[in-house]
């Protein structure tokens, strides 16, 4: 053996895999776990935390869940630490972290946080309302994020999601009020989302203006237009033009009776059910159809796509217009689902959170939708915490999605990679 030393050595060189081991995910999860443990150490709270799980009309009534707050929180820390171990083990072998790990991590963290926050409070945590409210708050963000994903996968950065949501909300309010039909309002919102997207496409694809600039300016333009017409036209004749009929809640027969998730998820309006359909539909369209393959091709390598005969500009135009329509649905949520009238700048930055969800979700429709749900939950948590009198200032809860996004963009939470040609106009030779 020793005499043949060089031979196996060469063989080893031949077969060596070069794997880039990234410890970023491990570090990110670890930091969150350590911070949570520190919070528990520095600010312990005595007493039990009660979760109200039952609502009227459930198939069977669950008892209220009452757990010792601190002990539960520490158990959650242990589970989180275990998950960090799993992530570390996977990273060490150069394997991808599967989707369930971060999802479970987030759920455990949030549950532990709630247990800590509600410990010793004499009020229950309204669990069902918390989840239902999160889903509702997440609706415009999910639709906006889906629009963002489609656009960016085709290589067009869409900063104008905020503008599309706002334009959708405005036209849904006006058309919905005039026709007295939420369906026509929804349709109008889609059309206006497409219109904003058409302006974006005209400048970004045809005139090759920097896409981020167009997006930023379009947001300002839509804010200006909707606010102007709101003050000038909608306010003087609010009854005719700004008073919509909202969609009714539809309870799905059996599903809505399931305890906890039933009333939260399956007693909602049509737009929410549309969201349940839209997320897998967009995923399927992007990753399993010919259209999706072409969209991804022009977003990753437009020159190669052009070489095999795909019309780059036409594909991008279509994708951007579809993305605008999807985002428009999210806009309709504000004026035909949430409330029944339009208000100045009522989207309040949801478009930018949607953009964050796109990046946090790694340009994948399902992950982006999950990220949007997480952001919806974080913004809804503020209400629940004020009910139980938690010691966390509401501003910090509201800040959470943005901090999480910064961490995600900085690469601390997993790896995020944009479509290679996102933001680049394609110039055919």
């Amino acid at each position, binding site marked *: 053996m020793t005499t043949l030393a060089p031979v196996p050595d060469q063989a080893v060189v031949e077969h060596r895999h070069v794997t880039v081991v990234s410890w970023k995910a491990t570090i990110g999860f670890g930091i969150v776990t350590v911070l949570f443990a520190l919070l528990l150490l520095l600010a312990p709270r005595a007493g039990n935390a009660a979760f109200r799980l039952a609502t009227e009309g459930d198939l069977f009534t669950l008892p209220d869940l009452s757990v010792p707050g601190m002990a539960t929180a520490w158990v959650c820390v242990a589970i989180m630490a275990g998950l960090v171990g799993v992530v570390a083990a996977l990273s060490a072998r150069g394997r991808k972290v599967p989707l369930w790990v971060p999802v479970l991590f987030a759920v455990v963290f949030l549950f532990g946080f709630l247990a800590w926050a509600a410990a010793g409070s004499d009020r229950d945590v309204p669990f069902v309302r918390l989840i239902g409210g999160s889903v509702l708050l997440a609706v415009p963000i999910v639709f906006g994020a889906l629009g963002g994903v489609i656009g960016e996968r085709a290589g067009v950065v869409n900063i104008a999601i905020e503008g599309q949501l706002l334009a959708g909300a405005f036209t849904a309010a006006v058309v919905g009020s005039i026709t007295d039909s939420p369906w026509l309002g929804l349709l109008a919102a889609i059309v206006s989302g497409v219109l904003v997207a058409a302006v974006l496409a005209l400048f970004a694809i045809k005139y090759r203006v920097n896409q981020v600039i167009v997006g930023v300016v379009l947001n*300002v333009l839509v804010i*200006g*237009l909707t606010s102007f017409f709101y*003050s000038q036209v909608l306010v003087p004749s609010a009854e005719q033009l700004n008073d919509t009929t909202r969609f009714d809640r539809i309870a799905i027969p059996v599903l809505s009776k399931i305890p906890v998730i039933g009333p939260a998820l399956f007693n909602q309006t049509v737009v929410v059910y549309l969201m349940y359909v839209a997320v897998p539909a967009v995923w399927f369209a992007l990753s399993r159809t010919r259209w999706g393959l072409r969209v991804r091709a022009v977003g990753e390598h437009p020159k190669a796509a052009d070489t095999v005969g795909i019309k780059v500009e036409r594909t991008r135009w279509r994708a951007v217009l579809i993305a605008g329509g999807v985002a428009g649905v999210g806009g309709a949520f504000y004026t035909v689902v949430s409330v029944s009238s339009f208000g100045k700048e009522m989207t309040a930055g949801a478009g930018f959170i949607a953009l964050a969800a796109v990046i946090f979700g790694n340009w994948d429709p399902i992950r982006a939708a999950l990220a949007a749900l997480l952001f919806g939950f974080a913004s809804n948590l503020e209400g629940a915490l004020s009910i139980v009198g938690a010691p966390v200032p509401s501003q910090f809860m509201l*800040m959470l999605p*943005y901090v999480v996004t910064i961490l995600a963009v900085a690469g601390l939470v997993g790896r995020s990679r944009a479509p290679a040609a996102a933001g680049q106009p394609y110039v055919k030779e």
Partner: protein
Amino acid sequence: MSGSTQQPTTPVVTDAGGDDAAKLPDTRDNRWGDAFQRVVSGGWAVSLGAVVLAVLAGSIMIAFTDEGVQEASSYFFARPGDTLAAIGQAVGGAYAALFRGAVYDFRADDFATGIRPLTQSLTYATPLIAAGLGVALAFRAGMFNIGGLGQMLAAAAGAGWVGFAFDLPPGVHLVVALVVGILAGALWAGIAGLLKATTGAHEVIVTIMLNYVAFYLLSYLLATPGLLQAPGSANPKTPRMKDTAVLPDLLGPRYALHLGFLLALVAVVVVWWLLNRSSAGFAFRAIGENPHAARVAGIHVPRTTVLAMVTSGALIGLAGSTQVLGLITTGFGSDIDAGIGFDAITVALLGGSNPVGVLFASLLFGAFKAGGSAMQASQRIPIEIVLVVQSLIVLFIAAPPLVRAVFRLPQPDRKRPPRRRPDAATTQDTATTQDTTTAVER
């Protein structure tokens, strides 16, 4: 502007000779340069055309929503003259009010009152100049700083805190407050710069997110007694600034114009010098034009990135500081930004990312702001029309081919304008496509 700085861009230029070197991954950041080049090289005709188009669009919006016009248009076919007269009255009245509010109130009794709108415009322009310079500087370094809002808020918090919480001798107090405010803005932008330099996080996303973080952080500080909240008050508002920390009025107590305006003018000169005459500015522009060439030339790209972002944040910090120490000295809330952080972007784009251009763009937008308020007060036209006109101006300026097409101006972007061909006889019949093929064949 960039005539003296061709050295770092030479590799790009030679590549671009083969037309589409932009496909190479390493020239990706160059698209910023291209876009701004396009904005800068738009030329006066395009700028003027863009303003005309935007004002026209604004006029249409005013005309359509005016009650008098709507009334007259109900019998348009009987007496079309009435509708036109009503349109003229609505639009003319609006722009007259805009002028009275922004430049000179010709209805005022004396000159001192009449000139007041002009000083108001300059006051509104002050933070726009400083913040616009910050955004423009980041542009020149190839970065897009959308974080003006967050940096303004950070600066306002810092400057305001020093302004009301400390007792210092006059003069020193003002300087310390200004410096702390500027440093706070610089620090806030520095986070984005540092993340970009170390992890490659895109500054657009990070600065947008930092806007929200700053907003909620300031909201928390303002709502918590003992931090920024005024003692004995339940409102989320700071106490009033101490007199020693307030920027003195330039033209006496009658006008709102304060020393901040001069500071902004000084900033214009400093930024011009920094960009065009200093080695730091050369490094900024070099990484903006081509970071790879800059690195080969010996420029430390990560460090320059952070430095450019910090400088940009410092300028926006100056804007935030002058707001709380000069204009709103009676205590501020979390709405202190008043849209300036985003207006700064449009100002920088309109000003072609060069200091003097930013100055004039800021004066224009300041006048729009002052005039818009007057228009809202006297003509009941919502001030948001100003937002529409401003964003349309920038949109049109960013797309010169569109403006040229509307006004039928020549398109200089064409590779081969037909005029350049000397032999007229052959070019008469040949289309432009054939034109290029013959050129290739030669």
